[in-house]
């Protein structure tokens, strides 16, 4: 593939589910124009959407930066929320601190972080209690 790297930037407002959906759809459109393997696009989309939802639900919103390079796609989701006190516990399938109203929307199954790990080639999480969380998802284009 032959193009320079492309950067997309978005803000995720707090408690705004619609915005997170918009980001994924806009990102998906750009990726499909670049003729990237649909399976790769899907993995990026799932991981990015889970990350955005976490920023919306658990951290009062944040920002997303998508970088598309010829060999990989990187999605960086940063928030200034409360951070994750026990990341190992948070990574376990089924662990969730999501409130009941969020669960009723079909989120908060404690599968977000595990889903991100499964779909990313590299998942890097930098979280500090009281300061925020930055998640970097890398998916290689093969």
């Amino acid at each position, binding site marked *: 593939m032959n193009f320079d790297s492309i950067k997309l930037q978005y803000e995720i407002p707090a408690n705004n*589910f*619609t915005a*997170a*959906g918009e980001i*994924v*759809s806009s990102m*998906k459109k750009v990726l499909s124009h670049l003729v990237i393997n*649909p399976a790769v696009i*899907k993995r990026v*989309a*799932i991981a990015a*959407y*889970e990350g955005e939802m976490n920023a919306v639900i658990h951290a009062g919103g944040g920002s997303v930066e998508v970088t598309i390079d010829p060999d990989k796609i990187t999605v960086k989701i940063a928030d200034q929320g409360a951070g994750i006190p026990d990341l190992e516990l948070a990574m376990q399938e089924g662990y969730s601190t999501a409130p009941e109203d969020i669960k009723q*929307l*079909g*989120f908060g*199954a404690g*599968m*977000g972080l595990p*889903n991100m790990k*499964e*779909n990313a080639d590299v998942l890097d999480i930098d979280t500090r209690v009281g300061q925020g969380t930055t998640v970097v998802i890398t998916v290689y284009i093969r």
Partner: protein
Amino acid sequence: MKVRDFAHRLGLDVLDGNDGLDGEVTGMYVGDLLSWVMSHAGKGSAWVTIHAHVNIVAVALITDLSCIIIAEGVKPDKATLDKAEQEKIPVLATEMTAYEVCWKAHEILQAEGVC
């Protein structure tokens, strides 16, 4: 089988996303845990859910689903319908339970040799 014909044969109300009615239904999927649906539903599936909020459109888009079927008489939000129209994802509604939808869909899709 086209979403248009599928909706007609099942007697589903087409609420929105008319531009997606020529998409092909290649299977069925049922579930209400969005993370689970995203990672398990196959491309082209008709997805039966009881959720009606706007996130279902994002899930359908990410998973390349052919349509969303909102069962049990649940009414979608306006934001959901607007977004579905924009993304060309048909939203179909019915009073049937998820079980009834799948049971009927199976007969139709099997007869058509889909699944």
